């Protein structure tokens, strides 16, 4: 195969990323985040990004790094309680924030990637979240219309991937990554183990390679744990 999706490093895999772009990022808390791509995004110096991600990392890891450098103009998230920088920038009006219920966010990204511009959900009806949005009754229950989400770039992290971009996730590090992978004009995956085409069992692939345009072998994974809890 002459055409390859494999890039030498995170920096080159982000080629073409510009100010004001929308970047959809996988992960839940710090679990399953594309940590190498986030570092490269910070180092690229692009600004005024709209980031769509369930959480905003912590102050010094994950997307929190891009908040510290003020590269993010707007965040679309469901829960940001772990990040003091976020709260400060939001309350001061410096950071624009769209809080979106977690299931609605997952479905908005899934819909966006699946070519569905909007859908109706019962979540959030009668709350702030539904304010200004179209509502409609189906079978006697009220639903609110939510829009699909796509991004200029989508960044995901997988356990294993092959050179066609087929991805396998591990345990709860899957979380938002499969939907995020479908939602980017350019989807970049970083993997812990990059293998040859044919090495992954087709029955075990979570994200088919069609959704992935670029793939890198991550040089190192800190895989930081947010709440280290053990049995007594």
């Amino acid at each position, binding site marked *: 195969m002459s055409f390859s999706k494999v890039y030498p490093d995170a920096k080159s895999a982000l080629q073409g990323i510009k100010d004001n772009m929308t970047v959809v990022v996988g992960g839940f808390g710090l679990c399953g985040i594309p940590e190498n791509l986030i570092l490269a995004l910070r180092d690229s110096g692009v600004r005024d990004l709209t980031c769509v991600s369930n959480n905003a990392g912590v102050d010094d890891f994950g997307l929190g790094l891009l908040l510290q450098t003020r590269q993010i103009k707007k965040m679309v998230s469901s829960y940001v309680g772990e990040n003091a920088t976020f709260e400060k920038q939001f309350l001061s009006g410096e950071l624009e924030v769209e809080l979106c219920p977690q299931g609605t966010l997952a479905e908005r990204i899934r819909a966006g990637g699946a070519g569905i511009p909007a859908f109706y959900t019962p979540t959030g009806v009668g709350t702030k979240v539904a304010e200004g949005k179209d509502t409609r009754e189906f079978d006697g229950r009220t639903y609110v219309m939510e829009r699909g989400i796509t991004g200029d770039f989508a960044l995901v992290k997988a356990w294993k991937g092959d050179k066609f971009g087929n991805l396998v996730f591990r345990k709860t590090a899957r979380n938002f*990554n499969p939907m995020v992978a479908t939602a980017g004009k350019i989807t970049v995956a970083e993997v812990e183990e990059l293998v040859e085409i044919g090495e992954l069992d087709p029955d075990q692939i979570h994200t088919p390679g069609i959704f992935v345009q670029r793939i890198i072998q991550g040089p190192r994974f800190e895989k930081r744990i947010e709440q280290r809890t053990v049995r007594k």
Partner: protein
Amino acid sequence: MPLTREQITKRIAQEVKPGFVVNLGIGIPTLVANFISPEMGVMLQSENGLLGLGPFPSEAEIDADLINAGKQTVTTLPGASFFSSADSFAMIRGGHVDLTVLGAMQVDMEGSIANWMIPGKMVKGMGGAMDLVAGAKRVVVAMEHVAKDGSHKLLKRCSLPLTGVGCIQRIVTDYGVLDPAGNCFRLLEYAPDLTPEDVIKATGAPVELAPDIKPMRID
């Protein structure tokens, strides 16, 4: 004396029936898992993408790729499965989860709940709470009956931004067990060291006594 957190937790565990799939929120609800016996065949769902949640790991079992919705390291039980967040909320929104237990800052007699935002003060976000209250078959709230400053948390109408409208079925507090009944709360059980009158006084809405009202049983 009102109940302790552990006593509230034990009373909530009685809401869990054999064979249920249950989603437990962060805080008191998480502790409920400690009082569900394995023989009941209950599966715990964690909305980040796990069904079959097990206890916290030993030091040697810790895995950064295996966490619950509170971002704590966990383990899995036999029969567990992993899935995407979209599939997870298909379970929740699609009415496949039998019971969810979550905390609240306020609840009201119409069954509405507020637990995600204090305007101008606290902006953490709603996480999965709005989906859970909209989609779970049964919604039980675990909370302290009265705020630390003495103000009411069980109200005629919530004053904080809502998480869901008319969606909760039961409230278990350190004072008693109450069901929202539209124009009042119905008091089903009261803490053994309190009287129904104590509960009425601590509630910011009318309270009706259930015909078979009784003291809470805490094993």
